Each structure stands twice: as structure tokens, then as C-alpha cells.
């Protein structure tokens, strides 16, 4: 069964689990635990600690499937970022557009994967773009990567993000991205 994989990563509370849930054929496998860090308590009740896993059946005849893996957001779980990147066709980095800290964290993820020598397409999704006008500037990152303003609960938005990533993959134009 050919299975391909897309990694969904980004800071805490950026909508990764929701993003996967929105398009997954199966109820996503989640590893959520109660938030215990002081700085995050109150923002949401639970957070991913190992990974989220969703799947889209592409073609029954060929048994072709697309796996969606979500990473934990916090940097203390960065060892899982390392594990989950294995074999990904591309990376979707999500950040909460209404949260400056979240947007400012995008380079952390870019640099992490860059330091690992990961050379695959990356698309950035700014979530909650529909809910608030306070969309923080992501600087010159937008010159190197496609940046989409999305609502992670909106199927069309999620589809658009994935399609942008896959199209970028097919163009093989991701290799020269600078940031």
C-alpha cells in the first residue's frame, strides 16, 4: 500500500490537530494530555504530546493513502519533530495569526528543519485569520514560502494549503528557498 506523508507542525495552539481533523478520513489518533505548563494553562485544556495522526484514502484500487502527522508544538517536544519528519513529502507550518508569539515562532521551525538538512517543500498557514484583524507580520519569510491565511476548521482552507504544498512538490522549486 503506497503511503505518503505530510507533516503539520507549528507552535502551541496554532491549530495543527484541528487542521488534521478537518480533512482526515479517520478519527485522528491523538496523544493529547492536560496542559501543565503555567504559561499555557488557560489557553486550552489539552495539548499534543507525541503526535497526531490522520489519513486520507486516495485511491482504493491502488491502495494509495496520504498520512497526515501533526507534531507537538512545544519546543521541549522537539525530539518528536525529528522523528516525525522522516519521509514527509512536505511540511505545513501553522501559526496563530492573532498571536504575535506564535507568528514569531515560525523561524524556529524553519531553522529546526533547515538544521536537519531537510529539503522538502514548506507552506506556512496563518490560522484564525478569519477571526481577528490583528494579523501579525511574518516579515520576509513570505518571500521564500507560500503563506496562506486560513481557518483550520474550514475544509476548503485546509485543502488549499495541502494543494499548495503538493503543487510546490511537483514543481520541485522548493530547493532554493532562502529565509
Amino acid at each position, binding site marked *: 500500500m*503506497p503511503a505518503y506523508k505530510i507533516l503539520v507542525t507549528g507552535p502551541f495552539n496554532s491549530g495543527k490537530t484541528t487542521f488534521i481533523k478537518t480533512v482526515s478520513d479517520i478519527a485522528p*489518533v491523538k496523544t493529547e494530555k492536560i496542559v501543565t505548563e503555567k504559561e499555557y494553562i488557560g489557553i486550552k485544556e489539552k495539548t499534543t504530546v507525541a503526535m497526531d*495522526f490522520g489519513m*486520507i484514502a486516495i485511491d482504493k484500487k491502488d491502495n494509495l493513502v496520504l498520512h497526515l502527522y501533526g507534531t507537538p508544538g512545544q519546543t521541549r517536544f522537539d*525530539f518528536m519533530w525529528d522523528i516525525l519528519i*522522516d*519521509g514527509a513529502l512536505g511540511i505545513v507550518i501553522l501559526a496563530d495569526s492573532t498571536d504575535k508569539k506564535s507568528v514569531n515562532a515560525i523561524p524556529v521551525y524553519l531553522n529546526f528543519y533547515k538544521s536537519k538538512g531537510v*529539503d522538502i517543500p514548506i507552506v506556512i498557514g496563518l490560522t484564525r485569520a478569519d477571526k481577528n484583524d490583528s494579523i501579525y507580520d511574518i516579515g520576509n519569510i513570505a518571500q521564500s514560502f507560500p503563506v496562506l491565511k486560513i481557518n483550520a476548521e474550514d475544509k476548503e482552507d485546509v485543502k488549499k494549503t495541502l*494543494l499548495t504544498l503538493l503543487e510546490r512538490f511537483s514543481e520541485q522549486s522548493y530547493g532554493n528557498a532562502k529565509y
Partner: protein
Amino acid sequence: MQFVILTIKIIWLEYHITMKKLPDPILLIGSEKVEIEIVAIACKALGYDQYETATVSDIKSDSFKLKHYSFAIILEKFFTDQLKDFVKLLRNRQSNLPIIFFSKYSTVKIENTIRLPSITLVRNMEYAIKKLDSSPQEDVEAAQNGTTKLSAIIADITDEEKLKTVIKKTKQQPATKSATILDLERKQHLYDTFVFATNNVTGDYVSLFFHEGYVFLVDFSKTEDQINQIYNWQDVTYNTLSIDDQQVIRFLRKSKTGWRKSEFIWNASKYLTTDTIKALNIFPEGSFKISLVAPSFIISRYQTRIKHFSLASLASGDWTLQSLQYRFPTHFDEILKVVTALYFGNIVDIVKRKSSISSNYKTSKTDGTETAIKYKTVVIKEGFLAKIINKIRGL
């Protein structure tokens, strides 16, 4: 038919490709069906349709017929005599069969003295056998000569005769050197390169790593203050190295005057902190051979800062569960099922290499040793990418 070949350089375990090439089914053994099902689901999710499941009761039955397997996974609370016999049977049938033993239950004490590891991955039985076949005497001699002051000899429990030989040789060590010797008789369960023990005071995990004849000890779960509180370092005089983590640590405290036990602590939440590295480097060069067994990226990150230790990186995958186990001891059950899926990729990789199936793997020297960084060429059939795109468009 034309194919569009898209090449990307990635780190990948390629289970989606390898699974088609698995020569034999996977064998899943467990005491309870529900446990087997956890792994079976993971198998299925990854496309491993070829697997066989059996409970421990099944394997006792005459109707249970052993076949050849790509690898075996055993999920059990206890590594019982019955399971030992079964492993022996499997090994007799397939000497190189990779076996993973998951015991996700903590603090299991059997045979009065032996504390069963919380998780033991029987990944590398070949290594143990090879070690014994080559010359267990070498290790013993190295210990006697002071070449290796702390030496692990790995014994294969499925070969009683060899085990007895090693134990006998080990026991011949002078008492003064006893601190350098593992009490193999009490360690019959150390049939692989590393073991997870359980702290019998707090129930948390303390580990002993055995690799390439070296030992690395670590407690991931405690702060320095907690350690000092739990273990009374001041009055310890033990000289045995035991699977009992307290004794291990006490042994170390006694071994060199002036060493404070707390300095051995590697707090997982901080990985290797500057202080820890400083602490590690207080050992006089050559006084101990202690391997740092850790994810290769940690090793590569810190190798230049740790001077006197033989660095060794386990093959990828060994540490996946390890990391999670330490980081999430209380969440481990939930995580196990998904991590298992990831882990499979590594096992398959091992099988693949053993089966001499062609691969595009390259090795890379990132930490002074050949590590398991793999770059692979992914080939996507013409049409597959288009199918994925079309499917998503139509969602």
C-alpha cells in the same frame, strides 16, 4: 509506461515501500488479545497486512505451527520461562529473527531477585551471540587488566551453556575487581544491549545501558535534590553492580572518592545540560568506559564537549521508545500504540538490511561513529501525485 521520478533527499524509514518486500509475516504474541490488537492496528495502519497473532495460550497449543517470520513482537508482562522457551524455539527456527519484547508494565519482580525491565527490546540478539562467540574472555581479561574498569558482558539467555561459561569466568574475578564485573547470574534478562530498570523506591525509570561492552547509567526522572533525598549517599558502601538501580548508583558513589552521585544525574527535561557535561567530564580519563547511548542527534550535538567517553550511537529506533518512555512515563500506554507504528519502520529497516534487499541508504559520520542517518530516493509513480492532488481537490 513512463514514470516521473521525483527525487527528494529525506530521512525516511520507508515502511510504505519496504512492507511490500517483507519476506515473511510479522508474528505478534501477547498475553491478552487487546494488547496484540494495539500492535495489529498499528501494523494495519502502516499497511502491514501480513501478520499473525497468537496469545501465550495459543503458543502452548499443539495446533500452533511456527512459520518463518520477518520479525516477532512479544507483548507480555513477564518474561516467563514459558516465553523464554518460546524465544528459544523461535531462535532455533530462525537464528537471526529480530524479536521485540514489550512489557509495558512497570516494576515487575520475579525470581525474588531479578527485576524485570519495564521494556526490553530484543533488537540485537545477534550482537549478544556474536559477543559470546567471539570471546567473552576478552572482556573479562580487559577488566582484569584494568583496560576496562567497568565492563559489560552480554549473555544470551537462550544459550544456557554459554551463559554459564560467562558467569563462571566472571566469578573468577578477584574480589577487589568485583566492582568491575556484572553479576550476570542475576542479570539473565540482560540479553540485549540495554535494559530499562525501575526504581524500586519511586517506581520511576532508571536505566542501565549496555552497549559495545560499556555501561551507561542514567536516571532521567530526578532532580539532584530528589536524588539526594531518595538515596542516602553518605553511607553507601556497596560494591556490587546490580540491576537494582539503587545499588548501581551506590556502587558508583563508592567507586571514586570525591564523586558526588548527584553529578551523574542526567535530567531528561534538560537533555545534557552544561552542568551535566561538566559533571561527566570530572571522571579521570580512562577511569571508566561509559558509553553515552543516546539519540544520535544528541550525541552529535554534544560529542565535542564530552571528552572522555566512548560515544556510541545505537541504531535508529532504539531510542524512540526510550525517549518517550522517559519523557512520558505516565502517558506511555497511550503513546505506545502510535509510537509502535513508528518503531516498526526501524525494525523493518533492520530486516531489510539483513535480507540484503537493495536500498539507497547511505551512512554519515556525524558523531564519530557510523550513524543511521539515511537518505533515500523516493520514487513516485506517474499519476500518484496527480491522484493525491485530485483527491484533495474533491474532498
